[in-house]
């Protein structure tokens, strides 16, 4: 909220606006009196009825301003917001600034379209339990700390979990392999620095979750991006800031609290009432999801973050469910779709789905004759369902069945001590 004091308005106009409670730039822009709604000269505004919710006397006082004065205020408020908050440039400017976050593996990166996942947006990783979602995230925690020349973001990481503890022991094994792998390219990679660059917090319930998203996370990120300046106003070089700016936020998982706390109030449990009450809690959930999504996207854009949300999957109970992936043999007992429905689908920028066939079952889940899984490991598949940066996502609207074996948007992967790596298919 910004007071209208920042605008260069004649005192009388400013006074009137404050009297009718339009005392912030935001209020002014959201109010939209009828006179402003018209683009032409507003001599006709008197014919409009006051908007509902505005008391008549306030409205009259506002109308004490001439149409030009109202337009002036409105235009100035618009200009202020435009100049202070909206980044305006050309696509070329953006192209030169755009960063990508590698997965640290060529095959996986290629499947994702070349450079890994996007920054400035939300990427969702969905899949059943034990498919490797957390492994992917751990790997991103490490690669995000690589310098930009190596495909990283040269930043630190925030890990928000709704599902218990941070997988420390798993991270330990991965860090060791990671440092060994990049030792030659990035000599100053240090295990302790890596550990210290991952912030962890758990969100045990929805209330904590909202609080973290609304207050703690924005402040933490903002602080981490402040450049330390010494007394002369120069960026200090000797006094290296302890931590790099936050460049990656991982939420594991977004669905958990929403699913476990979706309650129907007992009062409305009978007959029709129960249905209504369920509906209203679904509505409530939708609006919270949208709000979290909008908040995360704004943070992501303002600070150039990559945001990764892990999502659970839910069974599909339909006679003839639409296949998640094209020409996948449909197994009526094994149909899944990411949780949280259309609302969340519209909120994320990209969706990656991980799958595996169950160990011991000879069921051929996959259409693209895969390399035989070695030593009885389950076969794991990564698919890009949609992503704004690739031309052919597997599950997208275009070219349903045409996804070739080598196509962008699809690959097999394995998980070992070092982390996740892609398998080149023959």
């Amino acid at each position, binding site marked *: 909220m910004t007071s209208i004091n920042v605008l260069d308005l004649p005192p009388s106009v400013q006074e009137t606006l404050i009297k009718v409670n339009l005392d912030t730039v935001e209020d002014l822009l959201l109010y*939209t009196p009828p006179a402003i709604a018209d683009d032409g000269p507003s001599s006709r505004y008197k014919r409009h009825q006051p908007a509902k919710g505005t008391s008549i006397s306030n409205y009259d006082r506002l109308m004490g301003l001439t149409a030009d004065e109202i337009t002036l205020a409105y235009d100035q408020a618009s200009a202020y917001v*435009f100049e202070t908050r909206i*980044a305006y440039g*050309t696509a070329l400017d953006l192209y030169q600034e*755009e960063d990508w976050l590698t997965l640290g593996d060529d095959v996986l990166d290629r499947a994702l379209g070349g450079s890994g996942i996007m920054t400035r947006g939300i990427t969702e990783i969905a899949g059943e339990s034990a498919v490797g979602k957390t492994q992917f995230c751990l790997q991103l925690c490490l690669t995000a700390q690589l310098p930009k020349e190596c495909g990283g973001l040269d930043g630190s990481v925030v890990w928000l979990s709704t599902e218990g503890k941070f997988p420390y022991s798993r991270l330990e094994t991965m860090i060791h392999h990671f440092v060994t792998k990049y030792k030659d390219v990035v000599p100053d990679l240090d295990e302790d620095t890596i550990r210290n660059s991952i912030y962890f917090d758990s969100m045990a319930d929805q209330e904590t979750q909202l609080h973290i998203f609304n207050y703690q996370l924005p402040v933490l990120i903002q602080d981490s991006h402040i450049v330390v300046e010494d007394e002369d106003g120069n960026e200090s070089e000797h006094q290296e800031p302890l931590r790099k700016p936050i460049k990656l936020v991982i939420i594991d998982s977004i669905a958990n609290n929403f699913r476990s706390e979706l309650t129907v109030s007992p009062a409305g449990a009978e007959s029709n009432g129960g249905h209504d009450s369920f509906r209203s809690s679904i509505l409530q959930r939708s609006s919270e999801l949208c709000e979290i999504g909008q908040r995360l996207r704004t943070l992501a854009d303002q600070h150039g973050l990559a945001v990764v949300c892990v999502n659970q999957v839910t069974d599909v109970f339909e006679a003839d469910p639409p296949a998640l992936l094209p020409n996948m043999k449909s197994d009526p007992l094994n149909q899944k779709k990411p949780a949280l429905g259309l609302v969340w689908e519209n909120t994320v920028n990209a969706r990656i789905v991980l799958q595996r066939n169950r160990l011991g079952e000879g069921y051929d889940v996959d259409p693209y004759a895969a390399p035989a899984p070695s030593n009885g490991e389950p076969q794991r598949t990564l698919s890009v369902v949609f992503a704004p940066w690739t*031309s052919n996502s597997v599950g997208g609207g275009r070219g349903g069945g045409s996804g070739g074996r080598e196509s962008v948007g699809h690959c097999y992967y394995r998980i070992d001590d070092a982390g996740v790596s892609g398998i080149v298919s023959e």
Partner: protein
Amino acid sequence: MSTVSSRPAVTLRLSGGLREKVIRSGYGTVADLLAVPFEELATELKLTQEQSNELIWQLQGSLSRTAYLTWEREATSVPITASSSALDSLFPRGKGVPPGKITEFCGRSGTGKTQLGIQLCINTQLPVAMGGSEGTSVFIDTEGSFIARRVAQIAQNSVEQMYQDMAVQGPAVDDLMRGIHYCRVHSAIELVAMVRMLRGIVQAHPKIKLVVIDTISSLFRSNFSDTQARTRLVANLGRQLVSIARDFDIAVSRN
């Protein structure tokens, strides 16, 4: 033009003082008024700023009022191709997204709405012979799905396609990228401000022929407990966009 402009100047809806000035001036018809550069007219009639605004509004309004003129304007305007003859044929003249109007594309995630928006931004810059309008575009992004690298890819393909089909060396990829004004808005308030500023931006850059908003709905999905206020805002945005599209002959597509 002759049909409209023979309209007597007295019939313009003007306020008292202004009407008197116009009648006394001796200009009999709208055509007479339009024949003089407006600045000269304003000085000659000694109009105040307010009066000259009112007069120009009415004069412009009178121009777009007849069906004939509207038709003529539409028939000579240049649609923007969607790079697909099947898609283009869905539009009135079979040539793509029409200027002067708002076109909405809707569909689920991953169906290609953003991609289509980017493609239109590139196509706007193509020569008229290839379905473009040799203009530039504004892309208002509310979701963050505008990936510059993808834009460069599409631009590269378009340039290659142009070379193949017409043996023409098209504009450089960098120039195509420069021809897309991009802005990211994060909230409904920012969107309202942006659309308000749009008129000025379009006036300052007369080459702008296309405005893409991707997407109109995403910012209105949360934080609005007052649905009436939301409806009013959205309606108002729509109205401003329509008027910008009409006045400047710009195609607006919102996803």
